[in-house]
């Protein structure tokens, strides 16, 4: 029984496409989202993450392909589906003139909830996001982290089946981010299904059971954070920095070095290797002495940069 409950597909996409005029934002993606999992969309800006989120949020009709959410068609039954979703948009859409509690009241009413139920849930949710002592305050003076937590509380007012978070911690300071992560992690442990987009790799690594790396509207890779690191990166990375005058010569010498992959950047050379310390000893014997060297484990960030490139896109 638990096996069938785990296998319940909440969102199913096949060949999903979103076009804006001649621009294709989402270019034929397939995925299944299962109940209870945390699913992440990673990708640089403009990769199609937010367009995908908007389609799942039933506020953007797909241009092609198939999309089923909670077993229903988002175009024909968008209103009924949205009644069961929670959305944390990229930019806060709180009414800053209203109080914390009023924001939840207005939102609860959108979902047709009775006042009494809204009041009860408001107390519980404000406690959950640690804003109970700000209930009567206006939203305006709250910090960015508090506003984000309030947005999360608001998105939970209808007890959603799926919580959609578009870059939930972008723009927050590290303390505020950790509080948000902590709350999201608790939601996940309570069995709430999460879909999130992010370009913070640590966020994805902490929260996501499964993730996709998106680039130019397509999936460049798919799997658990651990799988992706194993598949697209090495266990360890050796970062070397040479004297700028010797940089090019060192790069030339290290070309034939027996690394899984070598990456030459403007000021550093990265060697993707199984054992960083062993590689460093070998480098020292073969090439020049590096000015600085760093051995670290391979991360999701390496995977991300490998798959989407190091170009700047804004």
């Amino acid at each position, binding site marked *: 029984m638990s096996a069938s409950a785990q296998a319940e597909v909440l969102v199913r996409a096949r060949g999903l496409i979103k076009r804006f005029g001649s621009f294709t934002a989402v270019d034929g993606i397939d995925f299944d989202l299962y109940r209870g999992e945390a699913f992440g969309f990673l990708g640089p800006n403009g990769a199609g993450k937010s367009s995908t989120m908007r389609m799942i*949020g039933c506020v953007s009709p797909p241009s092609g392909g198939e999309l089923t959410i909670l077993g229903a068609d988002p175009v024909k039954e968008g209103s*009924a589906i949205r009644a069961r979703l929670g*959305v944390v948009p990229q930019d806060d859409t709180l009414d800053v003139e209203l109080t914390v509690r009023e924001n939840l009241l207005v939102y609860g009413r*959108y979902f047709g909830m009775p006042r009494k139920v809204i009041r009860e849930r408001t107390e519980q949710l404000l406690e959950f996001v640690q804003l109970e002592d700000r209930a009567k305050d206006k939203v305006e003076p709250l910090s960015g982290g508090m506003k984000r937590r309030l947005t999360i509380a608001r998105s939970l007012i209808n*007890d959603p*089946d799926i919580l959609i978070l578009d870059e939930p911690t972008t723009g927050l300071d590290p303390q505020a981010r950790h509080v948000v992560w902590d709350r999201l992690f608790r939601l996940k442990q309570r069995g709430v299904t999460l879909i999130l987009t992010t370009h913070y790799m640590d966020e994805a690594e902490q929260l996501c059971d499964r993730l996709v790396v998106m680039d130019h509207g397509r999936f460049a890779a798919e799997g658990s954070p651990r799988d992706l690191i194993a598949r697209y990166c090495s266990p360890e990375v050796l970062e070397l920095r040479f004297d700028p005058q010797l940089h090019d010569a060192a790069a030339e010498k290290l070309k034939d070095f027996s690394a899984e992959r070598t990456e030459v950047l403007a000021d550093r050379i990265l060697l993707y290797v199984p054992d960083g310390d062993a590689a460093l000893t070998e480098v020292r014997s073969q090439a020049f002495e590096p000015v600085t060297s760093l051995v670290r484990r391979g991360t999701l960030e390496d995977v991300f940069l490998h798959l989407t490139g190091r170009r700047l896109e804004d």
Partner: protein
Amino acid sequence: MISELTADRPAVRGSPEPPAQALIFRAFRCWLTVYRRTWRSSIWSSILGPICYLGAMGFGLGSLVDKHGTASLGGVPYLAFLAPAILASSAMTTGMDESTFPVYGSMKWNKIYIGAQASPLRPADIFRGHLLFMIMRICLNVAIFMVVMCAFGAERSAWVVLAIPAAVLTGAAFAAPLAAWSVTRKTETSFNVVFRFGMIPLMLFSGTFFPLSQLPAWLRPLAYATPLWHGVALCRAFSLGQVNWLEALGHVLYLAVLAGTGVWAGARTYSRRLYV
């Protein structure tokens, strides 16, 4: 608090959607909650506005006009001629105020529409709920104006009560199409154009302050075509008790078609803007 697993819920597919009126009402109530913060100051300006207008124009300017004979006004004092027209034009002003910046702001500033969109409300519900609130604001201002107007003794007939729905219809005939248009705006510059080249000329040349017979003949048809003139003519006929029912029906039809077109268009423009 957050339910463990929500598998026992009814299926989404084929579940009955709440009726549109219910969804519109939910959007409307959001605006009431927002209005609770500002109603006091807005009520004061709604009371002081008509007092200033009727006092200065009706009595001040009116005493000058009345001295020179009011045959061209139909033999009534200037105050009685002016007051119902100001009623109609202030309904227009309220309609325009409520359907421009607040609509634009709901997309760009406080993002009320964007927030509401992530709920069962559809773009058309969001539009109609907001329109309902605009009409409520118009009703409120018209009612206050009517009280002040009667306190000034500016009404000449008991038919004046019908000037209330007439003025509300006038306001709605501006609010609905303007809201449908405002939501499509990406910048706020065009709103000033609407106020400067739309609202002010309309107030001046729609038979508000002087009868259209005073305009050159070639300009009159233009004035007859403006929606405000129909609202002014309607309110004035009721207030003076000089009702030609056929003409009144024409005015009502004109305004109702305009409002109806706005309601129809708004559902489309809101969808196009919100549902992309």
